[in-house]
């Protein structure tokens, strides 16, 4: 029977069926569930690495040694791993090497929407693009076969929509356990694997020749297919865009490319010759369009369809209608365009916010109070940038905070500034930057938010947590020791729920003429251990003066009461007992002690 699987689940199943033995990655939406699904499967090894560069090196090593291997990351992870991608492209592989890269058109949870297909052409690495869950499963096998046949790593590019959509999948036979016991012999071949310039010079033309051979094979690859239809419009498409195009052009001719780099030149020419108007519909960059143009095939693509953002049936339809490619489809006239709905006032948004009880809140409330410039990083704590905290002032890519903060300090600004970085992010790419701060004796204060998890992507283990992806206990990294060994002498650990100690420690560090690190240590409030400690607090309404100080912490558990403060007519605060965890940060900022602390509550939530 068919199973309803997400693209990520199907990829994991495909990797298992296809004999992948070693998998490595770093979490990143929308790729994270691939390794989480793969890790418990029998006969395989899977690990989280500190970052994507390390993960790709690990997968490359396994492949060099003769085991089928997979590295998994989100699109920006490949920037971190790009150095490894390029050397693996030139050395080639022993056993199949698959690099799964998940793009995020529309930036549902990313800082940019770079198109990974560009890396394929840049590094001469074939790129496969599944259009649904079934193809996610099948293309793992295709990728590994291409990899071994043409001696190259292969990228499998998904997107958020493919990764997180579920479809029916016919799974293949279970993996044969016998093969897992075989131990490969490392085949020593320095001319292929030692990229000294002399060897690299010999390898480069081989790499170019290999990718030419892939391009030739692409013409007959089953995942590149022509679906004949009406000849007035011929559509070249790939990935999720194929699905939207199919809805909008039910009768057109299609050339659906499963291998989007290198392009199948003969197939495209043959298709173009048979249609009147050649239209390219692709999500992201005009990659297929440029290939068609290079071949001299007259076509239209990004002149009609959006370059920016995620495509959808409606964006494809709207653009196609404007370009006269389709007739009006009246059932698509959305209610959204009806006059009634247009008159509606803008609805209040419901953006992600720091959770009730989030330990990051204590640090940001203090940083806001101290009015320092905050050079931030990527994680849940990036939400500290949003009102009402508004206490994070730059965020670019993972690990950027410490280097940026050092640079800001070097510019000699009038204010104080600090770097703020999460624990997982620090292990990812913060260590080298902190070494630089120590080495060059920067005055930078680095705050490491140690919530003992990778919270943003759904609570993955990391080197500091004491467990691996497959649940093996392991010695947790000694964060204070690590920081000291890098050369930082001023190292302080604070509890972010204790606002006074956060403030005094930060003030002391800001006054120093030497680098310092403040570790704000408190487990994420969503972790099971933290949940056991929940104890909702209560506002004593008779004491509340409706000043709103507590609500400016941006805690979802603090809401406006129906009761007004008589003197000002402003709403008092109430605490939602379902949401409140009892972190007591609000109780500490209340100027009139109207919020009861845990030890002031009796069993019924009243005053003890």
């Amino acid at each position, binding site marked *: 029977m068919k199973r309803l699987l997400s693209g990520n689940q199907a990829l994991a199943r495909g990797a298992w069926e296809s004999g992948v033995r070693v998998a490595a990655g770093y979490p990143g939406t929308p790729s994270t569930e691939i390794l989480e699904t793969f890790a418990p499967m029998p006969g395989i090894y899977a690990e989280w690495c500190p970052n994507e560069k390390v993960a790709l090196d690990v997968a490359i090593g396994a492949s060099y040694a003769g085991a089928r291997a997979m590295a998994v990351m989100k699109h920006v992870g490949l920037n971190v791993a790009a150095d490894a991608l390029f050397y693996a492209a030139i050395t080639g592989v022993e056993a199949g090497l698959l690099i799964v890269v998940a793009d995020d058109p529309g930036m549902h*949870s990313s800082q940019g929407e770079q198109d990974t297909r560009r890396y394929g052409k840049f590094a001469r690495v074939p790129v496969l693009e599944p259009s649904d869950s079934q193809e996610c499963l099948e293309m793992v096998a295709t990728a590994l076969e291409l990899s071994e046949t043409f001696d190259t790593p292969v990228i499998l590019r998904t997107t958020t929509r493919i990764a997180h959509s579920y479809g029916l999948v016919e799974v293949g036979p279970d993996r044969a356990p016998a093969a897992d016991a075989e131990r490969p012999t490392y085949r020593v071949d320095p001319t292929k694997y030692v990229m000294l310039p002399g060897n690299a010079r010999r390898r480069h033309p081989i790499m170019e020749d290999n990718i030419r051979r892939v391009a030739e094979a692409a013409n007959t690859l089953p995942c590149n297919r022509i679906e004949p239809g009406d000849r007035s419009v011929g559509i070249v498409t790939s990935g999720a865009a194929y699905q939207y195009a199919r809805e909008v052009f039910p009768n057109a001719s299609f050339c659906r490319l499963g291998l989007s780099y290198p392009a199948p030149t003969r197939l495209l020419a043959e298709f173009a010759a048979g249609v009147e108007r050649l239209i390219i519909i692709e999500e992201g960059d005009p990659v297929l369009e440029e290939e068609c143009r290079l071949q001299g095939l007259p076509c239209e693509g990004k002149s009609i369809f959006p370059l920016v953002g995620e495509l959808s049936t409606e964006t494809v339809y709207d653009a196609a209608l404007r370009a006269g490619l389709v007739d009006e489809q009246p059932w698509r006239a959305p209610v*959204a365009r009806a006059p009634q*709905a247009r*008159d509606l006032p803008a609805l*209040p948004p*419901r953006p*992600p916010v720091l959770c009730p009880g989030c330990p990051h809140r204590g640090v940001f409330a203090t940083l806001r109070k101290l009015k320092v410039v905050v050079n931030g990083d990527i994680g849940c704590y990036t939400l500290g940038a949003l009102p009402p905290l508004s206490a994070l002032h730059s965020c670019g890519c993972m690990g950027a905070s410490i280097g940026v903060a050092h640079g800001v300090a070097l510019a000699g600004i009038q204010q104080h500034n600090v770097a703020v970085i999460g624990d997982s992010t620090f292990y990812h790419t913060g260590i080298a930057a902190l070494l630089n701060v120590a080495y060059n004796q920067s005055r930078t204060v680095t705050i490491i938010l140690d919530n003992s998890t990778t919270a943003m992507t759904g*609570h993955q283990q990391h080197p500091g947590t004491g467990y691996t992806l497959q649940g093996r206990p392991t010695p947790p990294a000694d964060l204070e020791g690590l920081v000291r060994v890098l050369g930082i002498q001023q190292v302080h650990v604070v509890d972010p729920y204790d606002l006074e100690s956060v403030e005094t420690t930060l003030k002391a560090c800001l006054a120093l003429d030497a680098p310092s690190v403040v570790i704000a240590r408190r487990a994420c409030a969503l972790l099971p251990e933290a949940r056991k400690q929940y104890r909702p607090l209560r506002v004593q309404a008779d004491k509340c003066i409706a000043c709103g100080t507590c*609500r400016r912490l941006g805690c979802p558990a603090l809401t406006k009461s129906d009761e007004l403060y008589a003197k000002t007519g402003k709403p008092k605060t109430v605490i939602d007992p379902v949401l409140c965890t009892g972190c007591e940060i609000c109780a500490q900022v209340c100027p009139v002690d109207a919020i009861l602390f845990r030890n002031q509550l009796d069993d019924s939530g009243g005053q003890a």
Partner: protein
Amino acid sequence: MTESDRPLYAPQNFLLAGVGGQGTLLAADIVALVGVALGHDVKKSEVHGMAQRGGSVTSHVRWAEKVYSPLSAPGEVDYLIAFERLEALRYANMLRPGGVALVNDYRIAPGSVTSGGDTYPSEADEASVYAANLRALHVPAQALAQALGQVRVNNVLMLGVLSVFLDAPESVWREVIASRVPARYVALNDRAFSAGRAEGLRLL
């Protein structure tokens, strides 16, 4: 515009909307699996992002002989199942003319209302949206679930309401629900589903 303008291959489209923590994704799972049990091609799509609680959560489910896009376009949704009133409003424009909004009669104020200057939409605002050729049914799912002893089953209760609008046999729903909730909550969820059906028949 009439029903018959739509192409025959048009899928049955569901959009489930709620606030993080309300069980929206589990409900979507169940709707998808009911479609599978009925022998349809099924796609379901959701965007997970951050681990935080309290954000807007949606999931699209489509049943048809062959489903292409995992997302319904605005104006294509047959049933909007909303677990919160503001979220219902936010996605009402996804409904096709004549589409049905099943709305849990429950409000969760977003942060910009509780600590900022925004106001929660009024019932008049709501009426102006739903007047646009839509059918909105408010279901006291929160209260009905509370009466069963567990507010959290309001999601399955809403599916009970939905079930009376569809052809699927009741037994299919009950089997799928039993397969998707922890064993010790099967009986409770089954009762929630029944309560929803009774409410649905009353509203129909």
